[in-house]
């Protein structure tokens, strides 16, 4: 039982790094701030709900200019869009 719970807890911890995309983005000191990405996307007409880090990328929850729900990944240094499934995207 304890092993089962332990194994579930591991799975739960792993859920925070979703693995949907990963970026080769180097040290965080060289990343551009999240606020700047938010401003760039807002200029495109997006309604940005939330930005978080995931797998070395910025993960953005937003409604795009057409009002579609999007969960999109961006490289934190270059802000290049990162397709879901990308591994160690260089930006």
């Amino acid at each position, binding site marked *: *039982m304890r092993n*089962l*719970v332990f194994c*579930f807890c591991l*799975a*739960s911890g792993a*859920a925070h790094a*979703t693995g*949907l995309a990963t970026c080769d983005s180097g040290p965080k000191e060289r990343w551009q701030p999240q606020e700047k990405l938010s401003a760039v996307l807002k200029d495109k007409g997006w309604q940005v*709900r*939330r930005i978080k880090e995931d797998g070395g990328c910025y993960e953005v*929850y*937003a*409604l795009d200019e057409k*009002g579609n*729900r999007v*969960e999109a990944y961006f490289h934190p240094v270059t802000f290049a869009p990162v397709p879901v499934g990308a591994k160690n995207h260089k930006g």
Partner: protein
Amino acid sequence: MVVKVWDALVRISHWTLVACVAAAWFTRQQLHEWVGYAALSIVALRIVWGFIGSRYARFGQFIRSPSRTLAYARAVAAQREPRYLGHNPLGGWMIAALLAAVALAGGTGWLATTDRYWGVAWVEELHEACADALLTLVALHLAGVVVSSVRHRENLVRAMLTGRKPAPRSGDVFE
């Protein structure tokens, strides 16, 4: 001598819900959403069945008063609780808690997919908290099944598969 206790809908809804909850834990995105909707549908079906189903499927049969549940819990602690043919009082409340937890996890999960709550942190956190609470309840449920099976020398897992249990013996509760 064995008697039929769990009807087909109780058993099928139980095991499909097990499959959905397990699958939900390990999936994400589209698949996770569909598994969640399936779980919500099963909970809805089971709740309706709790009012119109066969005898031991009904909430009225197995949801006992708090005082009786407490008395049963004390008897368990003293290892002199009677065997119940249907759900025992703690098991009955566990079923209510499990159904509620699945409904809350599914409901908050659906909410997180709406335009209004898309990407909203507290919805996601609430969804995760519901899932964690559900996991804790599942662990307690399994512990209860094991303890009860050992104490009364019956295989409750098999009973949930076949629907049949040993006939009531003297001192058992079957009303």
